[in-house]
């Protein structure tokens, strides 16, 4: 319904041919605390790390909470709560030496006991700590050796321990001990969290959609040079763009692709386009025929030649140029090229070239002949399919429109359709009721997550798989790469898995989009540009006002 409201604004814009900026509650300029005002389009629905799915929630976790390790701006892992850490020779015992004098926001001192409580809770209550449980697979238990030493025991050697530890936000146990059932734990919104992070959450106003963070002066590793960071939510991207233009906000965490060129041209605004970790793909329904409920799809999608023809008929470069307005690169593998500085990305995969004649030839050779209306068919199966996309993404309708036009030229009739994201989740998994879907992922810094999405065991209700891809060799490789400590050996397996997905095509990777952000260069300096974005906590701790 949000758009309905903006019909009015649009009409006003039509009449005036100018659209004034809509700003809500900008801080007065003469206020004494130095505040960085951040504009964004979302708002966290919860600050409970047990059950958080929005990236906005994770942005806040990074400010308020700390983890044992964290990803640095250059991609390697650095200690945060942990000063040093090491694994035993058999790889089954990890010992973390915590920094001394880490204080909770309420002044109490953090103990290794409390960290162990957290990790044991994640291990023992996977139904409650849903979002954390994936990161503790293979963990047996954690215990405090002394006040600043933590020991984690694992079932098998874990290849990506540092990455996993960087997602285990250590919460204040008294806030979380009181819940008897998983549901109670998940319903807790935790809107006044106590953490050990560089910022304290001072105000969270759900109605005004404003979050005020205050610098934590007792932070264990220096402290921010500004007093406050104020997040304010905008209802629409044009209003957000206008706000950075006139200086109502000092930075924005997101700019739509289609507005990036406009923002780059603003005076005193620096727009940054950073290679990120997101992928956008075309999902092809690959659910096994014996899946329950039985898949509802065009049966021709099972034919590898049809998949190849679809891949050949998509002009990825055009999608990048038009949909992303050049802010990204064409996609090929499920592992984006930025992970581990490119270490995990299989550079040997050679993508199929866009060629409409070739796509026509492939379908002709496979026995699909054109009918009177230009749509191909074989043995009564017409190449007609749905091309769906989630309605909350502003770039997908254009992408769908372009793809439908290319596919029409090779005799495939794809009907674009915008679908509510929640319905689309159910349609893809578990219902398997779809043909083609455009959707995207934000990858973790480690390839493990993206690889897990394609495993057969994730194709259950609530699992991450949406393609229904199921390949026993792939699944065996997935388990193997989790337990191989030697990075070179793990790389080999990870590359092989990418090759499998590329060849079988449950996904056709369309593009890797950049992170698009902007800040006012006349207000603040010191933003750190990295794949983490200029809104990472490391960046905001480094920001200082221009005198």
């Amino acid at each position: 319904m949000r758009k309905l409201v903006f019909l009015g604004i649009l009409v006003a814009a039509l009449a005036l041919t100018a659209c004034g900026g809509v700003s809500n509650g900008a801080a007065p300029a003469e206020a004494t605390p130095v505040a960085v005002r951040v504009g964004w389009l979302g708002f966290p629905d919860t600050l409970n790390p047990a059950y958080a799915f929005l990236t906005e929630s994770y942005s806040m976790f990074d400010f308020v909470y700390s983890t044992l390790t964290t990803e640095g701006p250059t991609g390697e892992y650095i200690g945060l709560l942990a000063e040093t850490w090491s694994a035993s020779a058999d790889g089954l015992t990890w010992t973390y030496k915590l920094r001394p004098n880490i204080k909770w926001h309420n002044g109490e001192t953090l103990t290794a006991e409390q960290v162990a409580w957290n990790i044991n809770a994640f291990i023992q209550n996977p139904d409650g700590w849903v979002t954390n449980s994936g990161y503790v697979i293979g963990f047996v238990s954690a215990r405090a050796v002394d006040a600043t030493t933590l020991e984690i025991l694992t079932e098998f050697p874990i290849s990506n321990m540092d990455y996993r530890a960087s997602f285990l936000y250590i919460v204040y146990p008294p806030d979380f001990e009181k819940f008897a059932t998983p549901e109670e734990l998940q319903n807790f919104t935790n809107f006044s969290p106590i953490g050990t992070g560089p910022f304290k959450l001072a105000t969270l106003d759900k109605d005004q959609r404003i979050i005020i963070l205050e610098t934590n002066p007792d932070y264990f590793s220096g402290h921010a040079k500004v007093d406050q960071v104020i997040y304010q939510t905008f209802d629409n991207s044009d209003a957000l763009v206008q706000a950075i233009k006139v200086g109502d906000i000092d930075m924005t965490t997101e700019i739509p692709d289609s507005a990036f060129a406009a923002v780059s041209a603003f005076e005193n605004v620096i727009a940054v386009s950073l290679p990120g970790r997101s992928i956008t793909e075309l999902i092809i329904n690959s659910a096994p025929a014996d899946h329950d409920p039985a898949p509802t799809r065009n049966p021709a999608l099972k034919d590898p030649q049809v998949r190849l023809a679809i891949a050949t008929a998509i002009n990825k470069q055009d999608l990048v140029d038009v949909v992303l307005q050049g802010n990204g690169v064409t996609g090929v593998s499920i592992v984006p090229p930025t992970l581990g500085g490119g270490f995990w990305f299989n550079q040997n995969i050679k993508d199929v070239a866009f060629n409409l004649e070739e796509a026509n030839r492939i379908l002709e050779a496979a026995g699909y002949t054109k009918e009177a209306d230009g749509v191909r068919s074989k043995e009564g199966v017409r190449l007609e399919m749905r091309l769906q996309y989630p309605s909350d993404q502003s770039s997908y309708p254009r992408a769908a429109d372009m793809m439908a036009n290319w596919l029409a030229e090779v005799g495939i009739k794809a009907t674009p359709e915008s679908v509510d994201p929640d319905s689309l989740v159910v349609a893809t998994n578990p219902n398997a009721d779809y043909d083609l879907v455009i959707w995207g992922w934000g990858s973790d810094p480690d390839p493990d997550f993206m690889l897990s999405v394609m495993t057969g065991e994730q194709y259950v209700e609530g699992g991450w798989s949406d393609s229904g891809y199921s390949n026993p060799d792939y699944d065996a490789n997935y388990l193997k790469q989790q337990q191989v400590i030697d990075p070179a050996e793990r790389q080999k397996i990870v590359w092989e898995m990418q090759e499998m997905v590329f060849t079988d095509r449950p996904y056709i990777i369309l593009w890797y989009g950049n992170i698009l952000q902007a800040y006012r260069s006349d207000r603040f300096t010191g933003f750190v540009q990295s794949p983490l974005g200029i809104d990472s906590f490391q960046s905001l701790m480094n920001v200082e006002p221009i005198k």
Partner: protein
Amino acid sequence: MRDSWLLFKRSLSDFWKTFRRNRMGLIGATLVISAVFVALFAPLLTPYAPALVIRDEAGRGLTYAPPTVHAPLGTDDAGHDVWSQLVYGARVSLMVGFLAGFIAMFVGSFFGILAGYFGGWVDTLLMRITDVLLVIPDLPLMLVLVATLRQMDLKISPLTVLILVIGLLYWTSTARLVRSQVLSIKERQFVARARAIGAGHVHIIRKHIIPQIMPLIVANTVLILSTAILIESGLAFLGLGDPTQPSWGTMLNFAFDRNAISNGAWWFYLPPGLAIVWVSLGCVLLGNVLEEMLNPRLNGHHLEGEAKIVEMRANHG
């Protein structure tokens, strides 16, 4: 047969004589007819196919290019010529508007006549259905219906869904209007006489009722056209149009989603907006004038009769 044709011709020429003196009506008709003309001759009026991407020397799509000689209204976010899209969009917008409007007229008139003529339980049943549809807000209901029907994988095109939903939901006001008119007509003496000499229901409705309410239906249809076009634009703006067959609403949807305003690309969002205003304004002007002319009751107050006679005398004398 010949008699009735002559009668028709004469009433048509009478109608035209009155109509052409009405400036508002003429403006309305010009707006509507010009839009229909543009839609019919779209291929002759456009330099490019609407889905063609205009490219620079390097082969990249020219996105948000301002108006030039080659693209009179510039290009959109995907490098399509806006003018060509606008002209082809007229086809979709008008087709959905007209078809949905006609469906609404037929359903509304049918229900209105049945309810008004037969009365009793038929009236109660049909009017309660009408009441239910009247109290539910149109746009949200249509949004939900279109979205749901699309999901159901019925083998019909998105545009057909749109036409059916608008047409089958927007007949209520017509039904009410027609019913009230029928209620009054069926009590008149000529209807009673026809019944007395043994005329059946079908005959009475066809020969006596329908000719009497036809003017009302015609005027109402033109008004409904404008609403249907507006609703189609609204639904398409909310993303429920068919992106492969863009209407004016779909163009606005893309302009909004793809930040045409931030890009200062007025040539992308202004023309479809003005086109919608153009057609709906035309329909409203035309509809009001037709209603005034065809419905003698709206012609003036009975006390104005004297003044008219004086005026006529003056004209003749």
